[in-house]
């Protein structure tokens, strides 16, 4: 059996080896990067380059999974965020590369930039900044469906129109990003169709005995989910539209620099400019009453979904021998009130004694 000292020696050596390997790997990948760079300056090879970079960074995170330090979670979190920041930095370059090329080749016209940029990539960038998970909405619907399937097999058919509507909606996102408001309406229509073919029908169904409470709660939950989905899409649309406005401002600012003959020789300088313009543009949005109200509505809608989900869960767990959340809440209330009473009495007693 290893002694404690042996263990730490082994551990230290293994940490050293990780770092050595990482350093060696970096050197190799740097050579690969340089090789790609010398092959051509355009977009060709850039996709490969990004793949190589992503694999490499993923490998780093895997290697650092167990650093063994006391604040290991914070360190891992920080590394993940740094990695995410670096990837966003890379993504930014990918978005702007065609424009840089057009500027160098002097083919950039005031309207050409729209053709040169990929709206999906812009959306990905904004998703990264604001933590929007592009699959979150369909995931939420799928999770809800799975939950319902588990407890009520008959509901499976009921959920199908919703899943289909959600899938359709997710395909509409690219149009949203390109600034087509009619696509938002299409999403609403898909959702209303799903509503009509599920909940709408059930309004005409007679009471279903002891399960009625569950069904009613389920219907309310689905109703809340549809409200949340619609609100969230509206909210994200607001954010994407602002992202596009910021993009145009970055182009305009760059054009100003061209006019004044100012040079940007490093991508880092461009990155700073991009951050500054985006912060300013989004701040203007965040200050508006419309945004504040929309944010409040999205939050409330998401809370309603959560609240109903927990209630529904409690209803299904009621027959199991476990303490439910609402029962614990009651218990906490009793303990809180008793403690308050005891503290008051202790204080009075202390005053009498004094």
């Amino acid at each position, binding site marked *: 059996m290893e002694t404690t000292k042996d263990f730490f020696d082994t551990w230290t050596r293994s940490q050293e080896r990780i770092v050595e390997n990482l350093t060696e790997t970096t050197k190799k990948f740097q050579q690969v990067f340089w090789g790609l760079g010398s092959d051509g300056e355009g977009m060709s090879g850039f996709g490969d380059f990004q793949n190589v970079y992503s694999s490499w960074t993923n490998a780093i995170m895997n290697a*650092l999974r167990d650093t063994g*330090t006391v604040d290991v979670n914070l360190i891992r979190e920080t590394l993940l965020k740094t990695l995410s920041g670096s990837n966003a930095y890379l993504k930014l370059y990918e978005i702007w590369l065609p424009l840089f090329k057009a500027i160098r080749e002097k083919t950039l016209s005031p309207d050409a930039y729209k053709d040169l940029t990929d709206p999906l990539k812009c959306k990905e960038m904004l998703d990264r900044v604001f933590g929007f998970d592009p699959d979150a909405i369909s995931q939420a619907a799928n999770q809800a469906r799975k939950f319902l399937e588990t407890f009520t097999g008959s509901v499976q058919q009921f959920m199908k129109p919703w899943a289909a509507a959600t899938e359709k909606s997710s395909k509409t996102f690219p149009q949203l990003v390109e600034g087509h408001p009619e696509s938002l309406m299409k999403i609403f229509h898909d959702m209303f169709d799903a509503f009509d073919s599920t909940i709408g029908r059930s309004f005409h169904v007679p009471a279903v005995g002891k399960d009625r409470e569950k069904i009613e709660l389920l219907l309310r939950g689905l109703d809340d989910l549809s409200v949340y989905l619609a609100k969230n899409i509206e909210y994200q649309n607001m954010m994407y539209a602002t992202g596009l406005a910021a993009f145009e401002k970055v182009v305009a600012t760059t054009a100003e620099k*061209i006019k004044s003959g100012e040079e940007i020789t490093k991508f880092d300088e461009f990155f700073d400019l991009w951050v500054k313009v985006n*912060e300013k543009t989004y701040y203007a949005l965040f200050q508006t009453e419309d945004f504040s109200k929309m944010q409040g509505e999205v939050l409330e809608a998401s809370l309603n979904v959560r609240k109903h989900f927990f209630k529904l869960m409690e209803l299904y767990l009621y027959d199991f021998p476990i303490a439910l959340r609402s029962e614990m809440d009651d218990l906490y209330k009793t303990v809180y009130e008793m403690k308050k009473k005891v503290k008051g009495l202790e204080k009075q007693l202390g005053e009498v004694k004094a």
Partner: protein
Amino acid sequence: MKAPFEAFDMKNYLKELSELNTKFIKGAETLVGIDEIDVGTAPKELVYEEDKLKLYHYRQEGKVTCGVPVLIVYALVNRQYMLDLQPDRSIVRNLLQHGMDLYIIDWGYPTKADMYLTLDDYINGYLNNCVDMIRKKTGNDKITLMGICQGGTFCGIYSALYPEKVKNLVTLVAPFDFSTNDALLFSWAKNMNVDALVDTYKVVPGDFLNAGFLMLMPFTLNIGKYVDMLDVTQEKESLLNFLRMEKWIFDSPGQAGECLRQFIRDCYQENKLVRGELKVGERLVDLKNITMPLLNIYASGDHLVPPAATRPLNDLVGSTDKSLYEFKGGHIGVFVGSKSQKELAPAISKWLHERANGETAKKNPNTRKSHSKAQE
């Protein structure tokens, strides 16, 4: 004339990227060598405990020159060790070196069992008990309260309810007038359904609040900060500085639901404190009851608690000895900035020393001089 990107090509970019990943690797190497991110290291002893609250007394290595003990009250949001983040960025150590006798409250991390705690419990209960404990321990009838951010609001409320126990009141970046929309959190809070929030979560998670803070500057705080961090990762001490701040930012206790409900509804949404309509427990809070000397410190560039929310306190209190101190910087800079260490902490110490023996600003002409930016 050269276009901005003429000198900017793929090779340049690859070179920059290669530098970026080299920094990343070196940073990873430095990170592996870090055993602990130490914060709040000024020596202190636990002197009182109640539920999850802990009251600490800082060990004074030198001589106490200011006879009135100071109780530091931090916000319920985030942790009090921000005031002692690291030895060279520590208001606590700075004040100790100036001969102050310091106590600090650690509110702890509320769990579901604390969901019913109200403003009444925090102010008339915990805070009042801590004040009484210090009064008893030190033999002082009155002590100094130094409240930070929401903790400053709590101290203001407490001083209005118990003026007989408070010798001096010092508030740092503490909101009182919530009618302003100068900061995003103030306008966002007004459109938040706090009942839905509290009824759903019971104890509102710290991560929820953090998401709001990150939204204030999303590009800088989610991307730019971490790209910039790569420039300092090679130096262990610089990286530790970054990590200490990072630890503090994301070390966010949950918020006891009932207390948060009342704070957001009564203060942020209905501005009851300024209007004299706030009730804590059974008692109405009248800020005019604050008659002790007041030092109100605000940060001119504060994007969390704007000056419009802090400054009005001086017009609302009954004190005749009141000072307004403008700190040129932001909310966080008040605690850890170099100006905070060089100017603010010594100014607070001087202001308190001058009042330790009942002297007022009028009696001591140096007061105004000591706060070059203070306005009476």
